[in-house]
């Protein structure tokens, strides 16, 4: 396994210039992710439009893999509906852990396939996706509670 498999140009670029970096205010949901082992922390804020993620931002501090993964995730899911986002998460998760997973049609996210060769770093790449899931669950719960109180 070469270092350049892990630190591909697109990953280094997203680490240096993260896209959709910052907070959305107002937002429909906010979730914080923390990897206590390495101290990576990130916060995801998002706005929904019905079933779609209308806008999303992230902020925090982490290694190149976690920052680049979060940056590419926000690009990939903005404007997408929930089913598409869930399917993407499954594909990325498979890409990070399963050598037989296909990276076809994953675009920039395919650059994360090199993480698989560095098992200690898989959690860095998946932290943003777990945080996104927590934010979506929170948005679901708050819209559900809105419905139940009406």
């Amino acid at each position: 396994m070469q270092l350049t498999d892990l630190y591909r140009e697109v990953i280094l670029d997203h680490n240096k210039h993260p896209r959709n970096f910052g907070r959305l205010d107002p937002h429909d949901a906010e979730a914080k992710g923390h990897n206590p082992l390495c101290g990576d922390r990130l916060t995801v804020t998002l706005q929904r439009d019905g079933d779609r993620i209308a806008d999303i931002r992230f902020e925090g501090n982490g290694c190149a893999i976690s920052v680049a993964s979060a940056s590419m995730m926000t690009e990939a899911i903005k404007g997408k509906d929930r089913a598409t986002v869930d399917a993407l998460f499954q594909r990325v998760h498979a890409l990070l852990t399963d050598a037989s997973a296909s990276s076809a049609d994953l675009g920039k996210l395919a650059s994360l396939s090199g993480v698989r060769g560095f098992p200690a770093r898989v959690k860095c790449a998946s932290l943003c996706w777990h945080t996104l899931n927590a934010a979506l669950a929170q948005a679901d719960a708050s819209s559900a509670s809105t419905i139940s109180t009406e």
Partner: protein
Amino acid sequence: MTALRSLKGVGYDVDQLRREFPILGQQVNGKPLAYLDNGASTQRPQSVLAAVNHYETHLHANVHRGVHTLSQLATDAFEGARERVRRFLNAASTREIVFTRGTTEAINLVAQSWGRSNLGPDDEIIVSALEHHANLVPWQMAAAATGARLRVVPIDEHGQLRLGAFLELLNDRTRLVAMTHVSNALGTVVPIERVIDAAHHVGVPVLIDGAQAVAHLPVDVRALGCDFYCFSGHKLYGPTGIGVLYGRAELLDAMPPWQGGGDMIRTVTFERSTWNDLPYKFEAGTPNMSGAIGLAAAMDFLEALGIEHAAAHEHELLNAATAALMRIPGVHIHGTAADKAAVLSFTLKGVHPHDLGTILDHEGVAIRAGHHCAMPLMELLGLPATARASFACYNTMAEVEQLDAAVRKAVEVFH
């Protein structure tokens, strides 16, 4: 400053020494291993492995129980290890040497046993900003159970204890000072002699977390006068799962047991029990005999090598590595105390410590990247993490050069 003898003329032969540690001869990721994570755990010499193997092969049975020969042999070996530890620390008696799982368990023992019987509402425990979680969390737990509170001695910009602030924190509510001897995250050697003198002057006992110190500084608990001293075997070229609590007999005698079970009792009825003598009162259950025997062998190894000689060698490596890394643009060294053990904590601008750790590993260099189990200290320094190289007796100048080249590689990867 710790007195360091020059190595010139003592014949410190690191190549010969490394032959005692076959694990160091391997390749990692196609590169020679440069093991610079000694602050986390040291490797064991053949003599330690042989002592453990000899015990397991020829002497093992349960201790303090059987009338049979093997049990007596195992007991003799285990108690011989205790005597070896007593000599290593220059303790007055083996009654003061309690075997534990490690530093963490030793501190928890004191926090639970001494803490719960001596702390009350508004009492204060003084710790420093340098503490490892192991010398912080047990006191938070004891404080929560008793209503006591923690007071934290700040550090200066070099990572040195602010002694003046410590003296101001000492007051008539202070019940205990619990402080590290050497900072695991920054390498600072704390002037514990002065801390102990000041605390004793107002009648306050002192516990020292010596986990990072014992392999690098000679420790004489009677000369120090400390009340408790805790350390682990695996940071001293010994096995994991074995550690030591040294406690002054007067304090240990007055403390209640913290775990109940076999070996720690004298008599047991269904209604009540009476406690065994020191140190057995604090060693419930079958102890880690092979660990204790391995630890004793590690002490033989280190004393034959000479702790001062090893420390002088490590200091040469630390100085060379510090100078080399300071020449790399973007490198910042955290912890610049005048008196430091061989710990080099650093960050590289634009490269997260975890990326640094991965790149260094790829170049065969094993370091620690993270918060070093000292989250409050990291927060104080405004850092999520650092990279830490820590040196031991068997490291070489070639490994320092390998570290230097690997950090430069990280600069190149992240240009």
